Each structure stands twice: as structure tokens, then as C-alpha cells.
């Protein structure tokens, strides 16, 4: 099979069995791979109502047909499972090198079932698949685990692991690969921890088969040129990484500050991409076959490691009132070590700071640095305690919604479907607002990055305050993103590629006959499939909303003053475009998509 290995591994951790199965080619055609095919397998194999941390949930780690292929940014893999944080379908994707290495072992996906009695890890070296004792790794930080497993299996081996946060079932635990790349969101690390699975080590020697080598070379050459010539992928991201967004988002007055109480941070310059590049950057880093290289490798004090992304800088920075970039870099290091999602960790700390400010959390509850906006000591200390789930850190590790709810103030959690909203105040970016509200996994910017047209002017510049056309933009971006996530490519390629470009790549690798339009159509099928999972899990249209603050409290000052997200106007239009009634696809809609 071109693009695919055609094989799936099924590992049962209770029975300690490993089976090799053929991929369902009909489903692969309809749902592409990665996020799409993973969601189809999940919906087919689990009851969406299961407790996400019970043995009945499954953890699916899956590549796309372009993962590991000789194509730009083709290194992504996806973790698909039911989220313990949101109760929705979770699909978190990550870059680095693990995904391509896993594909090279000869499998497209691994389905992990049930739960091991004792901690284990899985080692895959081409056809050899072993479930090995992992007790010596349990409790270890991500860098320690990675080092130990590379010592055991060789430097070429790539390691995907959880940290202590996943072991201790934090709802905001991530899965980390290659030490500092994260399948970050939705608490996928806790699902892995609930199965007593510490790590998956891979080492492969197989190449992805390509349908038309000559055509692929031609398409790749054209697309590499587009990446180089595009201002964002060719110049901006390589030079400054995603952190370059700090100043532009702040200048627009949509940089959430103090848990979204205000929308501009007077010390943004101190935590900007420019400051990070000038004062701390050692080198840029790139994922598998990525000509962009947006990754940062940074130094503070005597430590070096992966640097913070824009959303991480926001979460621990303005949102917690912190202007010390070194403290943010440090917090990011600790998130990688403990295996925590940086967005949800910073956002939960910001929510705790507002709870503290309003008197819900008392000083005596803490037994540690005071959770006050601007306290740098607090973000480092409490990030570590969230990771180890000690003391008040245990409560913080539940995520912001459950934390705020426990004090009777769930409205102070800036989340959608209990997943924390990142880094862009949707009150003055209307398309992003309806996208956040309707995202199948909850408050997420990478389910449809409307920031691109509404703020950055790519592919065209839209008026961020306008409502007209925004529901359609949200739907199109969500559908195209679902397709990109299913192919196994990085979303950043979309700054330089059109839908037709993706279709050309996909066709050259697999021999399929897609157009840009039909690829977006496949994305729509995937989006609806995820929605069906959510509905069966009990997450209906009533969850397609935003925190009260964003719907009712106008931005108080700055260039975005006086705005709220006008969801009551946007949502009905969005549902109509989707062919949904009250957030649920109609029978006709499902039939038209072949679902």
C-alpha cells in the first residue's frame, strides 16, 4: 500500500498479547489516517460513555499516509483516545522524530488496550514488539526516562513517554516524545498512565512506499520553494519561532492577561519573541523533514533545552501576570519534565490566581508560594507540584474547570468543554470565537486557526470585529485542519500551502485522486465523525459555548475595548452551514458524508 504500511499493532496490556492486523483500506480512504482514521477506530471500538481512565478506554497512537514520507513537515503522529479532561474525543498531535521512526517500524498505528497490572513499556524494533518491565522507570522525569531507554535500546531509538503527571492521572498530563515535543492537550498522558504504560520506544528501518516518485519530487520541490518564499514560513518562524506573536497579539489588544480579566499586557516586550531571540536563543531546531525550523533551543542560567512556544509564554506570562522570561522558560522546562500540557498548566495557575484574588482560595490552603498574579516563584513551584501532584498541586492538576467548580466558581475557568482556551481573546476576534466554541475537543486554537486571516492576514486579511462570513471561515478552516492532521503534516505548512497543494502531495504518495475540494470534504467527514463520538459521550450542542466572561463582559480597555464574542449571531449560522440542528448532524447530513 502506498503511503501506508497497511498494518496495525494491537497490544493488550492485561493479557500481554501483541497482534498484527491489516489496516481497513476502505476506512483509510474515507478518513485518511492520523486524526481521522484514529477517531473512526475509537468510535468503532469503545463505548463513548466509558470512564476515560478506565481499562475500557483505548489509546491509539497513529500516523498518517504522509508521516515518514519524503515530504516537507511529514513527521507528525496523533494520539487518539477519550479525554479525561473534556469527556470528548481527544486527538493530540506532535512533531519531532518519533512519528516518522514509528512509521519506519512497519506499522501505521498501535492500539493499546486494557491495563497492565504493573508499570511496563513497549519496545518496537521493526517486526520485534516487546512489552517490557517498566517499574524502574516509574516516577522518573521525562529526560531521565528518555536517557535510560536510549541507553538500553541505542541512541537511534526514539522515545515517547509520560512523566510523573501522567502516572498520577493529572487531567492535563501530556505525552512527550524526543524529550521536548508534546502531544499536549486533552490529558492524553493520563490515559497512558491509567494503563500503567510508561513509554513506547521505536527503531525502524523501513521506507514509506511512494506511488509516483518522479511526480512527488516535482511537487516537493515546488512546495519547498513556497515554504522558503512565504514570509511566515521562510523568514518569520525560522528567525523568531512562534513567540514572535507576543507583540502582534498584544498590539491588537487581544493578549489575555490575568486570566482574561484584561487583554493587553504592559510588559509584553519583556516576554516577546524578540527578547527570547536576543537574550536566550542558542539555536533553532526542526522536526523531521521540516524546512521551517520553528523550534527554539534556549539557555537560562546553566540549563539548556527546548524553549517555550507562543502559547506557553502567554499561559505562564501575561495570563499569570509574569514578565520574567527566564521564569517562563523554566516553567516550560518543568512541564516537559513532568509531562504537563503547558497551555492548561499556565491557564489553571491563572485561574487559581483569580480564585485567590477573589478570596476563594485562602493562604492557608496553599502551604507554598502565594498564588498571586505576578509571583514568579509561584509558577515554578506550583508547576512542579502539579507534576508530582503533591499538596495543593494535586487539586491544581485536575485542570482549571474542576478547580474552579470545587470553589463554586466554574465561570472563572476560561475553558470550552473543560479544555483551557489559549492565548487569543476571542471577544475581538469573532471568527476565532465561534471556532473555540464549536471545536470538538474544546478550547483549542489548532482546530481552526482563524488568527491567520483575522490578525496575520494569511491567506487574506479579514476585519477581526466583523461577523459576516466568519462562520463559513471557521467551518472551512476546521475541515481543512482535520485533513492536514490526518495526513500527518504540520499545520504550519498551511501558511505556505493551499488545499490543492495538500491534494497533490497526497495523490503523489498514495495514488489517490483527490482535489483540494475533495480533501476538505474528507475533513468535513472527519469533523462530523468526531461530533458523533461527542454526542454519544453526552457532549451535545449545549457545550458549544464560551465562558460567561467572554460573552458578557466587554473588554475594558485598549484597542479592542467594548467587545464581546457575538456567539448568539455566529452559532446559528455555523450550525446551518454544517447541516446541524442544535449541534448535532442531521440524518441527511450523516448520510451525505457516508457516516
Amino acid at each position, binding site marked *: 500500500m502506498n503511503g501506508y504500511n497497511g498494518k496495525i499493532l494491537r497490544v493488550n496490556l492485561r493479557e500481554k498479547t501483541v497482534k498484527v492486523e491489516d489496516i481497513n483500506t476502505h476506512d483509510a480512504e474515507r478518513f485518511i489516517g492520523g486524526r481521522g482514521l484514529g477517531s473512526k477506530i475509537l468510535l468503532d471500538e469503545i463505548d463513548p460513555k466509558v470512564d476515560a481512565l478506565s481499562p475500557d478506554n483505548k489509546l491509539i497512537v497513529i500516523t498518517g499516509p504522509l508521516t515518514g514520507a519524503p515530504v516537507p513537515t511529514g513527521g507528525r503522529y496523533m494520539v487518539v483516545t477519550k479525554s479525561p479532561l473534556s469527556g470528548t474525543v481527544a486527538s493530540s498531535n506532535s512533531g519531532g522524530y518519533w512519528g516518522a521512526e514509528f512509521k519506519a517500524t512497519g506499522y501505521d498505528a498501535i492500539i493499546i488496550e486494557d491495563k497492565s497490572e504493573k508499570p511496563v513499556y513497549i519496545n518496537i524494533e521493526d517486526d520485534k514488539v516487546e512489552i517490557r518491565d517498566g517499574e524502574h522507570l516509574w516516577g522518573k522525569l521525562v529526560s531521565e526516562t528518555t536517557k535510560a531507554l536510549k541507553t538500553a535500546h541505542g541512541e537511534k531509538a526514539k522515545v515517547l513517554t509520560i512523566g510523573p503527571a501522567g502516572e498520577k492521572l493529572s487531567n492535563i498530563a501530556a505525552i512527550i516524545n524526543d524529550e521536548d515535543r508534546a502531544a499536549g492537550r486533552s490529558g492524553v498522558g493520563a490515559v497512558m498512565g491509567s494503563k500503567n504504560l510508561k513509554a513506547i520506544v521505536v527503531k525502524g528501518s523501513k521506507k514509506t512506499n511512494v506511488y509516483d516518485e518522479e511526480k512527488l519530487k516535482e511537487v516537493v520541490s515546488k512546495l519547498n520553494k513556497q515554504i522558503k518564499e512565504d514570509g*511566515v514560513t521562510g523568514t518569520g518562524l525560522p528567525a523568531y519561532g512562534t513567540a*514572535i506573536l507576543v507583540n502582534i497579539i498584544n*498590539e491588537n489588544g487581544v493578549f489575555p492577561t490575568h486570566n482574561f480579566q484584561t487583554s493587553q499586557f504592559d510588559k509584553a516586550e519583556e516576554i516577546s519573541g524578540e527578547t527570547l531571540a536576543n537574550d536566550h536563543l542558542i539555536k533553532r531546531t526542526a522536526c523531521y523533514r521540516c524546512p521551517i525550523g520553528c523550534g527554539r533551543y534556549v539557555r537560562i542560567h546553566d540549563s539548556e533545552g527546548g524553549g517555550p512556544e507562543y502559547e506557553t509564554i502567554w499561559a505562564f506570562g501575561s495570563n499569570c501576570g509574569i514578565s520574567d522570561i527566564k521564569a517562563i522558560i523554566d516553567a516550560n522546562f518543568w512541564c516537559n519534565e513532568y509531562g504537563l500540557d503547558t497551555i492548561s498548566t499556565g491557564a489553571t495557575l491563572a485561574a487559581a490566581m483569580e480564585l485567590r484574588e477573589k478570596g476563594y482560595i485562602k493562604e492557608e490552603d496553599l502551604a507554598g508560594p502565594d498564588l498571586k498574579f505576578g509571583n514568579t516563584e509561584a509558577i515554578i513551584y506550583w508547576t512542579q507540584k502539579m507534576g508530582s501532584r503533591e499538596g495543593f498541586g494535586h487539586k491544581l492538576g485536575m485542570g482549571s474547570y474542576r478547580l474552579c467548580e470545587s470553589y463554586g466558581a466554574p465561570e472563572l475557568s476560561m475553558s470550552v468543554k473543560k479544555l483551557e482556551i489559549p492565548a487569543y481573546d476571542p471577544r475581538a476576534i469573532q471568527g476565532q470565537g465561534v471556532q473555540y466554541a464549536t471545536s470538538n475537543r474544546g478550547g483549542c486554537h489548532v482546530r481552526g486557526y482563524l488568527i491567520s486571516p483575522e490578525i*496575520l*492576514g494569511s491567506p487574506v486579511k479579514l476585519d477581526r470585529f466583523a461577523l459576516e462570513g466568519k462562520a463559513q471561515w471557521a467551518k472551512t478552516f476546521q475541515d481543512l485542519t482535520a485533513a492536514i492532521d490526518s495526513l500527518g503534516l504540520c*499545520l*504550519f505548512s498551511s501558511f505556505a500551502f493551499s488545499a490543492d497543494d495538500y491534494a497533490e502531495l497526497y495523490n503523489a504518495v498514495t495514488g489517490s485522486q483527490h482535489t483540494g475540494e475533495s480533501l476538505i470534504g474528507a475533513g468535513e467527514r472527519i469533523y462530523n465523525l468526531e461530533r458523533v463520538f461527542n454526542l454519544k459521550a453526552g457532549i451535545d450542542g449545549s457545550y458549544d459555548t464560551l465562558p460567561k466572561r467572554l460573552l458578557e463582559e466587554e473588554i475594558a480597555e485598549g*484597542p479592542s475595548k467594548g467587545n464581546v464574542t457575538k456567539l448568539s449571531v455566529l452559532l446559528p449560522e455555523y450550525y446551518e452551514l454544517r447541516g446541524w440542528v442544535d449541534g448535532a448532524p442531521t440524518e441527511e447530513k450523516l448520510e451525505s458524508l457516508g457516516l
Partner: protein
Amino acid sequence: MDIKVKLFAYLREGRDKVVLLDMNEGDTIKKAVKILNIDPKEISILLINGRDANIDSILVQGDTVSIFPPVGGG
């Protein structure tokens, strides 16, 4: 009239982060860009007081102009 111009990313190379200009009534961003010796092709996003603007937008006393080259992320 007094105009504050804020520069970002590599537009800062060889220039200050913030430049104060004394300009005339009716001047546009184009003139400010010329004074600062910035190639308009390098500009991706222009804001006046945090709101979308373009190269022909007319400036008024006290305006702050923010100039960005192509940037992105997410």
C-alpha cells in the same frame, strides 16, 4: 504633529524599537515608512492605535503606528 512608530521582528535591525517622528497634517503611513527607510515589500501588517490600517492611512496627532513583517505561529 507627533507620531510614535513601533517596529517589530527584523524591522528592528539597524533601527530603534520605537521611533518618534514629527510629521505634517495629512501625512500617511507611507511617508513614515519612507523616513524610516523600510521597503514597503517587507511590511505585512500595519496598525494605527492597535486597529488595522494600510500604507495610505492618514495619520493624526498622537497616533501610534505598529509595523510588522510577515509573522505567524500558533
